[in-house]
């Protein structure tokens, strides 16, 4: 909590939860009700909270198969574009199919270092 900025990725900001938060913050900034700096603080808190919550509260497991269209490894970030993916959820055996899914994945090591 002391220095959340360095220890958490901001990658979840690109998810729906992060986008919704960013938009809401943008509106408040646009209405000049908060500083951009304060918004940045909110986002760093968000980075921490979502990482911790996913780590601690979520137990679900998932397997998926597909054909890899593109892969990229840059700055410790893996990016995959997978086509014809089938996700299998552990509980309930539900299967989700998708034409293509982009996976952006950061190293989990960084979290361990904190």
């Amino acid at each position, binding site marked *: 909590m002391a220095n959340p900025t360095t220890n958490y990725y901001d990658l979840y900001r690109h998810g*729906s939860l992060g986008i919704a938060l960013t*938009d809401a913050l943008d509106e408040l900034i646009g209405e000049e009700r908060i500083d951009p700096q304060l918004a940045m603080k909110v986002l760093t808190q968000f980075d921490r909270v979502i990482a911790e919550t996913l780590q601690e509260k*979520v137990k679900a497991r998932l397997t998926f198969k597909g054909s*890899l269209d593109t*892969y990229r490894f840059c700055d410790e970030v893996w990016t995959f574009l997978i086509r014809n993916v089938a*996700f299998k959820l552990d509980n309930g055996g539900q299967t989700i199919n998708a034409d293509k899914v*982009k996976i952006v*994945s950061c190293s989990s090591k960084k979290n361990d270092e904190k």
Partner: protein
Amino acid sequence: MSNAAVGTVYDAIISEVINAVRVDFEENGVDDSALEDLKKEWQRKLSQMKLAQFPWDPKPEPPAPAPAHTQAAAAPAPSAPPASATYTQSTLSPQTAAQALSLPGVLLPGPNVMGVKQEQDFAQGDPTIKQEPGMQPMPQGYNPPNGARPTAAHRAALALESQYGQRAAASISAIHSGMASQANPALQPQQQGQRPGQPPQQMNQQQYRQGVAAAMQQRMQQVPGQRPPNGLPTAQLDGSSEAVDAPSLEPGSDAAQPPTMDRAQIDAHFHAQIAARAKQMEAGGLMLPLEEATKTPGVAGKARSGADGPSQLDGMDDDVKSEEDEDAINSDLDDPDEIGDDDEDDDDSMGQMMLCMYDKVQRVKNKWKCILKDGVLTVNGKEYVFHKATGEYEW
């Protein structure tokens, strides 16, 4: 893991973030209501995405699904505009064409009233001779309507100058002299006295038609090879065009004199302007209320009269206009494409995406295996969270 878990997880995240930043908000002296608004807005936006059932959804806001509905309704819309656009166009343009025929005479009492009226005098005189290329129409008693309308005269002079350059010098000077002489006020009542029975509006319409016909006629005379591309309006205007052509007979003997040439040009220019305004009316009628459409045409009409043959007021124009309009709508037509692109981008960036950490990524030849954790998966409009995921895929 399931979609249902997302709501509670996200709710927990939101609450925790809001609580965590409450101190920061207070330190910045920001009102607590801003924080509450932030939370509400955050939740509302998430609800709009309709990625999952959120715990805050059912209680406070049944309206929350509504925005999502509108969103969904808006989504297919981009494909619709082209069809609807062409539809309105096809349905509207005939109407506006009809309007343009009947209205401008009423709405544009500018230079044409006097100019055409003058010709009308000759119309009664001798309608038989017409379409003689050598003849130059010269309204004898014609006086540029400058005294009454200096602005129109100025415009005419300017337009003539820009259109014809040096050749128009004589006619411009004629305009200016006409301004000085102010012969109009005397003329106008005279002419109106000739046709006392007619209501002024009808007169205007008739004059307008004659004006159009005169413009076409003069264009034909100036450019003999060029004919109106569509015979329709010409046929309509036949009766009056005879009348308008009449002046060309009487002044025909004076045709060689340079000033008559110039006046003919002025005449032509006025008619061209009127016709251009009529055109403008058609175009404007698509977009604007009539009052507004009639206020504006002066400027655009002037611009057009210089640019292209403005006297063509017929079916061909409609075709051209529809093409132009299609061009104009192209920006709208482009939108679906752009939206399509955006959709693709969205698929890449947000629509179908998994954000996560990786523990291990292995590859043996073309077979990949990775172990991911702490992820958020957005797929097919639904959101999932997972603690651990294993993926196998071939390249």
